[in-house]
């Protein structure tokens, strides 16, 4: 043992100088002489393996005792090579029928793809990093059939992925992320308000700490059966990530690779604004009231409608109105004043002096003497078409990675450092990430191998934009005035008193303090939030080889982090000044031990089996402190600066799951494979007599093409059918069993307060159960030029544990129940075609498609619906019996028998009296398509992805119309002429004494009323949109330079030009991006205060030595 430790220490400590482990390298080519990219090399009898790079080269470590490489490539005969003395092995594969692609499956086991009885999709590192994102989840967009990925446009924000639909009514629906065996926490500790579309910051999902530069490959296990071995969390599927391991050879024991990505990010598009009318509630609202006189343009006597006489006046817009229903920009001063006088019965005296001059007015910044450039000055009344656009800056991201690899026959090593810096498009926003990772392994003796890998990540965010309906600075797609010049707003504070904010929506001449929401620059510079997450995850393992076919493996895995979030409200903000510090500390430790057997029983039978056990310990602590009653000293952001006692949340959550599991895989004649797995969990969160649950799975695959005649095989080179069935149990959140529960509240003076908690726990809970099955086929035609993979699946999750709302008249607002079941079924297709291929040129096309049908099958007696959240103002998202999960519920239009919308006698639409289901947030189908052209070292690739269907409620559209900002509020003369809503009068409508029931609506309403009363605020349906889209997600040109150019001194050098999120080719929702995630939780379909989508264009340079 001592020897082992010393050796390990030595290996880890001495970077780059390693005792040699045998590493074999070489080139793989086809029999036509072309180098094969992505060919699989595995070391027979071990889990060691790799793929060839773009030049067809590979390098693989060969553990002691192994001496056979298995090289396979789609469309070529798999070849086994027995190693001799040379460490360089070049292989030429013959085009053929045999296939032996290997993939990484559950628990990191490399399996032959054809043996799998379930669907698995693999993605290599190159696909992942070619158009870099800061979030590994969003990098998967369009690449996996059956994954619905929704990414937010927030800096370092959330991306949500669900595979094969939502399974859980409450609780996590995202797949489990596993990096080298370590389950990686993907929490999104966002507030309920942020998720539903009220004020909040999106801090992103925690799996974004996984560094794409370190990833070797990703296997996506979509179904429950692939996942049965990972425990309950894997019922949503598993994203198995394998990181790069170190390799080296005698020629080159140590390698260094440097890679840099640099992207320029800009706001891709903004809503369509109107540029015809300025701020105010009505066309005649520029008033000479409430403001002191100094050197105004107009000098004449004026009597206002209250009879007050002014000896001089300036025209001043109504800055207290948060919208743009004001005077037209093309009004002349004379015409305007005439109209104003008529409407209000006031006299301005002789108006001829104004002639046809346009209106000039005193802007908000002309009333402060500390602003000498603008003080007392009037300016022309005109539009500022780019006022919102100009708020956003050019964003920039740079990601730099350097990695060292080394290896010998006894040890391998890879160290990597990545630095990411991103400047946001919102002023003063930035994201920084530093990752250090180390992967190493050592074959200590013939019988003992050890591995050690860890990653340290530090994430820092500053000035993330606030989302939702709120008083935040970037609110101007909901509320604004179109004549405002954003440049003027940069002067946001009184220079002699930095606690005095200055903004446009001021209440009076002598008070520049905003009425409703902060100056956007004040928000950005005076009250940016800060956050930092320090995280470490890693694993240590020991494998004891017991004999040629039996080994014992023990591993300890940990993932822990501390995240600190500081939010600030500066003294002088619209809200009461505040500082809060929210600290999350999470740790998850897993320990497992497995006995593995791998034996070829006879020529025809092989067996792979293991049994093992696992313990999971998870602990979450949250310590939230917030000042109350304001901050004493301005600018001092510290909890000790609170005027009143602190508000405190002190929260700890613990959970343990013990498990035993086992698996047997049998193979017959390379043609028929059967997998059996079983697992039993004991969870601390369930009642003692119900805390154990068993879940089995069975999967099989049959290689039909083994039976084909040679003739048939020429056209249909490979055919496989597969089927599987699995059941997965699940527990619940901690502390849901025992009553009574009280809540402590902040003291009242010196009196402590305790209140009864609103929730009734349940001592009779039983575990949840998901039963699923899938069938699928994989077909390859014409020497693999065409491959097709198709799957049909069905999953039923029963005994769902959920918190169900209860009438508060019972004294409680909810109870924990086993409440019902959800069913998902669907198909997944992926098709890859190589229409053209020569030695130097290849054109390939890949398409994937998935369709999922989801239904809340039944809920228990008395519960018709479980509300997930209420969006601000209008709609809610629910799980309703008989509807799809995630149904948006709100008021609808009412219709007559012919489908015409009904209006009342006043010309307004009649809403349904109660909320009704309006549609589901889940897409009808999703997918992506890629095409790539490769000529020697140059390649061009394009990725589009799409979603059809799925609904969203858009608060930005709702308020943008109500506040008169959007183009449609100023089109076709609606402001001058009013609007007649399309529809027919409801039964019993009387207009001018005449019964007009059923007749077409003829009542005109004012535009401002139409865009309020007839829209989403009263009729949720009016701002419910179809979230379909087709996006040009990635485009890339890359050039890999030949090695010989550098005298073989440089291993590889490649340069790429990359664009990401280049265009939305198609969408149905106006003004916003339909991919409207606010957070990564179950509450989706609410768009509110979306930050603009960014388009990225940049380059990557990779150099390897």
């Amino acid at each position, binding site marked *: 043992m001592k020897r082992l430790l010393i050796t390990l220490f030595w290996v880890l400590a001495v970077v780059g100088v390693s005792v040699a482990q045998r590493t074999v390298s070489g080139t793989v080519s086809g029999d036509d002489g072309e180098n094969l990219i992505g060919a699989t090399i595995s070391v027979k009898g071990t889990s060691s393996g790799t793929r060839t790079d773009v030049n067809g080269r590979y390098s693989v470590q060969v553990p002691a005792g192994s001496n056979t490489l298995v090289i396979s490539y789609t469309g070529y005969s798999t070849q086994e090579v027995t190693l001799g003395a040379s460490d360089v092995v070049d292989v030429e594969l013959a085009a053929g029928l045999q296939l032996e692609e290997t993939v990484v499956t559950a628990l990191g086991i490399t399996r032959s793809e054809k043996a799998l009885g379930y669907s698995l999709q693999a993605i290599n590192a190159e696909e992942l990093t070619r158009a870099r994102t800061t979030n590994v989840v969003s990098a998967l967009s369009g690449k996996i059939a059956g994954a619905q990925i929704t990414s937010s446009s927030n800096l370092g924000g959330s991306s949500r992925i669900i595979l094969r639909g939502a399974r859980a009514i409450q609780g996590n629906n995202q797949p489990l992320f596993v990096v080298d065996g370590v389950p990686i926490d993907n929490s999104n500790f966002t507030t309920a308000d942020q998720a539903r579309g009220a004020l909040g910051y999106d801090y992103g999902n925690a799996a974004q700490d996984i560094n794409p530069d370190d990833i070797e490959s990703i296997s996506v296990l979509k179904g429950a059966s692939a996942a049965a071995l990972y425990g309950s969390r894997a019922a949503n599927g598993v994203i198995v990530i394998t990181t790069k391991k170190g390799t080296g050879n005698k020629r080159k024991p140590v390698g260094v690779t440097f890679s840099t990505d640099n992207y320029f990010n800009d706001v891709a598009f903004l809503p369509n604004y109107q540029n015809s009318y300025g701020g105010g*509630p009505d066309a005649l609202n520029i*008033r000479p009231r*409430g403001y002191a006189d100094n050197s105004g343009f107009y000098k004449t006597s004026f009597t206002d409608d*209250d009879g007050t006489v002014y000896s001089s006046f300036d025209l001043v817009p*109504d800055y*207290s*109105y948060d919208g743009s229903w004001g005077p037209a920009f093309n009004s002349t001063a004379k015409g305007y004043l005439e109209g104003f006088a008529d409407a209000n019965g006031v006299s301005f005296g002789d108006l001829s002096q104004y002639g046809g001059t346009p209106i000039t007015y005193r802007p908000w910044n002309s009333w402060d003497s500390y602003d000498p450039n603008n003080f007392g000055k009037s300016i022309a009344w005109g539009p500022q078409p780019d006022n919102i656009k100009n708020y956003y800056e050019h964003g920039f991201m740079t990601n730099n990675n350097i990695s060292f690899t080394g290896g010998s026959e006894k040890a391998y090593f890879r160290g990597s450092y990545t630095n990411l810096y991103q400047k946001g498009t919102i002023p003063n926003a930035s994201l920084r990430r530093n990752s250090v990772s180390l992967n190493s392994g050592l074959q200590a003796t013939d019988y003992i191998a050890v591995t050690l890998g860890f990653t340290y990540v530090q994430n820092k965010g500053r000035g993330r934009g606030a989302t939702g309906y709120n008083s935040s600075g970037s609110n101007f797609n909901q509320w604004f005035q179109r004549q405002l010049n954003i440049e003027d707003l940069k002067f946001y504070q009184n220079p002699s008193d930095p606690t005095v904010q200055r903004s446009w929506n001021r*209440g009076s001449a002598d008070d520049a303090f905003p009425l409703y929401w902060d100056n956007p620059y004040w928000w950005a510079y005076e009250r940016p939030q800060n956050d930092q997450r320090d995280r470490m995850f890693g694993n240590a393992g020991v494998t*004891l080889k*017991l004999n040629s076919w039996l080994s*014992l493996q*023990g591993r300890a895995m940990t993932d822990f982090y501390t995240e600190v979030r500081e939010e600030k409200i500066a003294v002088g903000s619209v809200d*009461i000044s505040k500082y809060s510090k929210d600290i999350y500390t999470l740790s998850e430790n897993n320990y497992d*031990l497995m*006995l593995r057997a791998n034996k070829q029983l006879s020529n025809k039978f092989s067996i792979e089996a293991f049994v093992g*056990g696992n*313990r999971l310990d998870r602990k979450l602590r949250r310590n939230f402190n917030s000042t109350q*009653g304001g901050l004493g000293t301005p600018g001092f952001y510290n909890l000790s600066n609170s*005027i*009143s006692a602190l*508000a405190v949340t*002190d*929260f*700890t959550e613990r*959970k*343990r799951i013990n498990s*035993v599991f086992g698996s047997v895989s049998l193979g017959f004649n390379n043609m028929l494979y059967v997998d059996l797995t079983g697992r039993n969990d*004991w*969870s*601390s969160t369930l009642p*003692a007599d119900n805390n154990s649950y068993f879940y089995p799975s069975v999967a099989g695959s049959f290689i039909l093409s083994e039976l084909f005649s040679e003739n048939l095989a020429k056209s249909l080179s490979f055919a496989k059918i597969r089927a599987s069935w699995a059941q997965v149990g699940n527990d619940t959140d*901690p*502390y849901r*069993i*025992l009553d*009574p529960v*009280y809540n402590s509240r*902040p003291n*009242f*003076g010196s*009196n402590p*307060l*305790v*209140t*009864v*908690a609103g929730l*009734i726990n349940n001592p009779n809970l039983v575990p949840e159960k998901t039963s699923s099955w899938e069938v699928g086929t994989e077909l390859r035609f014409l020497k693999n030029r065409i491959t097709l993979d198709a799957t049909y699946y069905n999953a039923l999750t029963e005994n769902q544990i959920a918190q169900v709302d*209860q*009438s*508060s*008249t*019972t*004294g*409680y*607002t909810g*109870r924990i129940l086993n409440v019902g079941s959800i069913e998902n079924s669907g198909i997944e297709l992926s098709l890859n075609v190589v229409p053209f291929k020569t030695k130097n040129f290849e054109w390939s096309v890949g398409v994937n498609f998935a369709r999922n049908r989801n239904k809340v099958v039944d809920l228990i007696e*008395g519960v*018709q619906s479980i509300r997930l959240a209420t969006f601000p*103002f209008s709609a809610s998202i629910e799980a309703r019996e008989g509807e799809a999960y995630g149904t948006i519920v709100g008021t609808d239009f009412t219709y007559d028998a012919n489908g015409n919308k009904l209006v009342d006698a006043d010309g307004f639409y009649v809403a349904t009296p109660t909320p009704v289901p309006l549609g589901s947030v889940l897409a009808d189908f999703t997918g992506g398509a890629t095409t790539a052209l490769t000529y020697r070292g140059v390649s061009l690739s394009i990725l589009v992805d799409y979603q059809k269907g799925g609904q969203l409620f858009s608060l930005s559209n709702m308020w943008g119309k109500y506040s008169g900002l959007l183009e449609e509020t100023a089109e076709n003369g609606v402001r001058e002429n009013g609007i007649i809503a399309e529809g027919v009068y409801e039964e019993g409508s009387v207009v001018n004494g005449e019964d007009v029931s059923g007749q077409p609506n003829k009542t005109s309403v004012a535009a401002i009323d139409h865009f309020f009363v007839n829209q989403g*605020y009263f009729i949720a349906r009016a701002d419910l949109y179809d979230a379909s889209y087709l996006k040009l997600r990635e485009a890339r040109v890359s050039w890999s330079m030949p090695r010989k150019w550098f005298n073989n001194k440089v291993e590889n050098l490649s340069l790429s030009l990359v664009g990401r999120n280049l265009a939305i080719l198609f969408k149905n929702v106006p003004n916003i991006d339909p991919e409207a995630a606010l957070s990564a939780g179950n509450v989706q379909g609410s768009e509110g205060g979306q930050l603009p989508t960014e388009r990225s264009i940049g380059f990557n340079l990779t150099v390897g030595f």
Partner: protein
Amino acid sequence: MNKRKIKSFSGIVLLGLLGFVSCTKDFEEINQNPNNPVTASTAFLLTSAQKSLADNIFDEWFNGRFGNQMAQYWASNSYTDESRFSTSALRTRIANPYWRLHYNTTLQDLQEIIRSVDADPRVAGLNGNVDNQKAVAMTLQVYMFQIITDTWGAVPYSQALKGKEIPFPAYDDQRTIYLGMLASLNTANGLIKENEPGPNGDQMYGGNMTQWRKFVNSLKMRVAIRMADKEDALAKQAIQEAYTAGVILNNADNGQFNYLSSLPNANPIYEDFLTRKDFASSNTMVDTLKNLNDPRLGYYYAPAQASGTFIGEVYGMTDGQAASTTLADVSQRSIRVISADFPGIMLDAAEVNFILAEAGERWNDLTLGGTPKSYYDAGIHASMDFWAEGALSSTDINNYIAQPGVDYDALKAAGASWKQIIGFQKWIALYTQGVQGWSEYRRLDFGVLKKARGLASFNDVTKKPEDVIPLRLIYPSEEATLNGVNFAAAVAAQGTNNLRTRLWWDQQ
């Protein structure tokens, strides 16, 4: 290690692991909730209940946008939907959350006190005499239930607050609730032991049971007088009993929740005012006070900043109309009303005096120690003393009372009914108690309230204010889903679930 040792070592490790993972004996400890207390002192529950009660009826939503708007004590500067009786706004912003809060916080915590006292009187007794604790909890429940039923009508009452046993409580009609409340108050009165310690944690009377007895009986009067049109005999009897047992006749005995001077324990209206300027005075009340030269004008409201005079903001404007009204041009609320430690007035001497005046008019054979006029005058005195905090002399007040528009006898001689005379002054005195002011308007029909300026009905001469002013609040929409069967039965029995369905005690 040789191969053999490895094998036996592995076997031991594997067996050890199986033992390790199948061990569940510390699960119970792991699943012990460290975040919430599992016991609760009745004193802590009482403070919590009282604070919830006050916060939830005096805050910017239930009182600011609802109660004080319905009584037209305040008008809205912006977001004027509720003041225009928008059913959508009233339901989503007021009905949904406050229905929940009244039951789930206030009533539930009070219920928990009663449960604790019954379950373990020895432990509960550490926080004061258990009967006294129970009496206070029952009384405050009645106080809360009356506001609930006067807002919505039929509500869950007898089956309410039994969450684990009755997940779908039936609604009781308002008569049942009123009779039940009266019975509860009688029980509470019987439980009070003035010589034993009152409850700890009491923020209203500091555990003074003599004052609590007065509060119980004053509340009994409020309950009784409100159902007087329907249950004449019961109301009459209750008022006589209450008077005999002792009621609040001086401001020193007023029932109020005493807010502290700093956040988060300040009056919620103060906190709201720090960030929002959504409410101003209402011209309904300002014009009334101006017409009567009422000295309370300056205590209720502040003069308009621009002119220094009192100008009421027009009640019930559209958002557009409100937006073009400059804040500085109209009277805002007085400094006192928006100050941090302004108390939540729950039941005061002025109201009790007005109730006694009315009782004298209704039933001339009661022994009440005064005449309708003497109690009417005393009600005005009590109100002015409270608001002026002694700054108004008795003479000032008497001069006010002597005016023809105020003088009880003169008004009667001029043909006014006692309902109008008493109701009108009571409405003025109930300022800041929005739901109470609105309830008395509905019950006594003394006019005064205006149509909302921003509604089409404002210009429709065929519609009088009493044809459009809300008579109740629509039920929260969530009841239809969470308690559907009982909800439907209640609507069927009570009448359409709209703003204009008359409550039981509201005689047409």
